[in-house]
């Protein structure tokens, strides 16, 4: 569904992603992990059009999307969840959701909103609350709910577990898995290696802007080298991965 080949990008003259390639097959959950500064978030932003790629191919269902604006890519069925600050904090929960349906016709909007409220009943009575007043986990759920209004086929998530209590991390990932079972593909950048290894079909490791490894979670765990470098000694902790000593 989504193909990135040899992508180079960064900010201004600063090149952060040197040469990254990955594929997200239809209906799959693909993870991106790696040390801080490896370019994971940058790559995700580039895929969604926030940053223009310096080089490389980015295609959605075979159609080249490199160089398009985020709102154009969104209309192709792609959703994007920022790491932080993705909501309109000074607006109400209701308005946030309505904005999620900006591209949906008036007639479908009501139906779409109802569908989302059905899946996330906790927001039904909180319509008038300011989005910024919600707890961290609730905000993350709201962002997901909002992204679902347009029924995307692919979601790009930037560290969905960041700064969340373990209880919420479980809830978020359970939600994502359920959504995936309904056919929604996902590309997830994560620092929380355990969380993503538990749900992903395939994981790409990015280091210093380049691909370092890719494989199924089992393959990653099986490799001693990868375990030591990127997963922590025993690969079984819930903490952010530390990069290889530099």
């Amino acid at each position, binding site marked *: 569904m989504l193909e990135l080949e040899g992508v180079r990008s960064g*900010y201004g003259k600063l090149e952060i992603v040197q040469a990254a390639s990955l594929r997200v097959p239809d209906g799959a959950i693909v993870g991106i992990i790696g040390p801080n500064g490896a370019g994971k978030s940058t790559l995700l932003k580039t895929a969604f*059009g926030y940053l223009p790629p310096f080089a490389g191919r980015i295609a959605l269902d075979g159609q080249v999307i490199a160089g398009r*604006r*985020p*709102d154009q890519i969104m209309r192709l069925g792609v959703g994007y969840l*920022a790491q932080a600050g*993705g909501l*309109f904090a000074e607006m109400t929960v209701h308005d946030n959701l309505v904005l*999620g349906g900006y*591209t949906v016709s008036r007639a479908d909007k009501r139906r779409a909103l109802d569908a989302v409220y059905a899946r996330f009943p906790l927001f039904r009575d909180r319509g008038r609350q300011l989005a910024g007043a919600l707890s961290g986990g609730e905000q993350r759920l709201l962002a997901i709910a909002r992204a679902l209004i347009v029924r995307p086929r692919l979601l790009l998530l930037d560290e969905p577990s960041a700064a969340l209590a373990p209880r919420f991390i479980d809830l978020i990932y359970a939600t994502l898995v359920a959504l995936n079972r309904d056919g929604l593909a996902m590309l997830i950048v994560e620092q929380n290696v355990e969380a993503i290894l538990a749900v992903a079909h395939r994981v790409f490791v990015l280091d210093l802007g380049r691909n370092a490894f890719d494989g199924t979670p089992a393959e990653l765990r099986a490799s001693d080298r990868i375990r030591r470098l990127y997963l922590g000694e025993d690969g079984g902790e819930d903490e952010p991965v530390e990069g290889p000593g530099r």
Partner: protein
Amino acid sequence: MLESLLEFLIQGVVLGGLYALFAVGLSLIFGVLDVINVAHGEFFAVGGYLAFAAVVLLHLPGAAGVLGAAVGTFLLGLCVYPLLIAPLKRRLGGRPQGPLYLVLTLGLSTFLQSSLLALAGGDYLRVPPQVSGILDLGVTAVSHQRLLVLGVAAGLLTALFAFLRFHPEGLAVRAVALNPDAAQAMGINLPRIFSLTLALGVALAGVGGALMAPLFNVYPAVGFPLTIKAFAITILGGMGNPVGALVASFLVSIAESLSVMVIPSQWQSLIAFAVMIVMLLVRPRGLLGRAVSR
């Protein structure tokens, strides 16, 4: 004493309508585009010239002049984002460089003002009032023209705030002002919203220019003193907050009006600037603005 107070209060309120038309547009443009439009006053002037052209040259009724000013400045405003701001943004790559945009709009201001001078000459052009007559309120008399300004301002600004509050596109404009990245992820076309907002903001000034033409006369630099005052007003209200600009417009206009009781009238304008400087030192975000990270 009370009579004087009332008289100046009323005059202040009437003046506030004009300030509001100007400052709300300016604040909206800043809130959405993060650009301070130094050339705002020139759109006011253009509005005046369009009214002159419609009424004096083409012998159309006064209302046509106002409508023509609105449409004309709107169309001119639509050109500003794609021709000037977008190219600069592309070069800067999204790095915040506020002052450079200020320099750009300063250049635009100089360019527009002197173009008007070149095209139309420096004479003060007279435009007949759209409405004549005076309303006698006992304590004071207010010309119908000034009341028209207040009325139109009230109507247009109500429409604007209703648009921002209830219409989906208005919601989109607010979204862009709050969080442009998230707005894009919602499918909102940023360049379109930027152009639309800028055009709307300057069209308000253009309407103001057409309505005030009978009172101020029309000449190239007619808008500039208002621009600087509007900066002071928007800072007082909180840059980027149109409601703050609305409130501050009346606060300043009434303060200016009342001040005539204690200081000579030519020093009136100082109040606005003094207030601005004090605000910037004490509370840069203004009365209603969001906290400033600078």
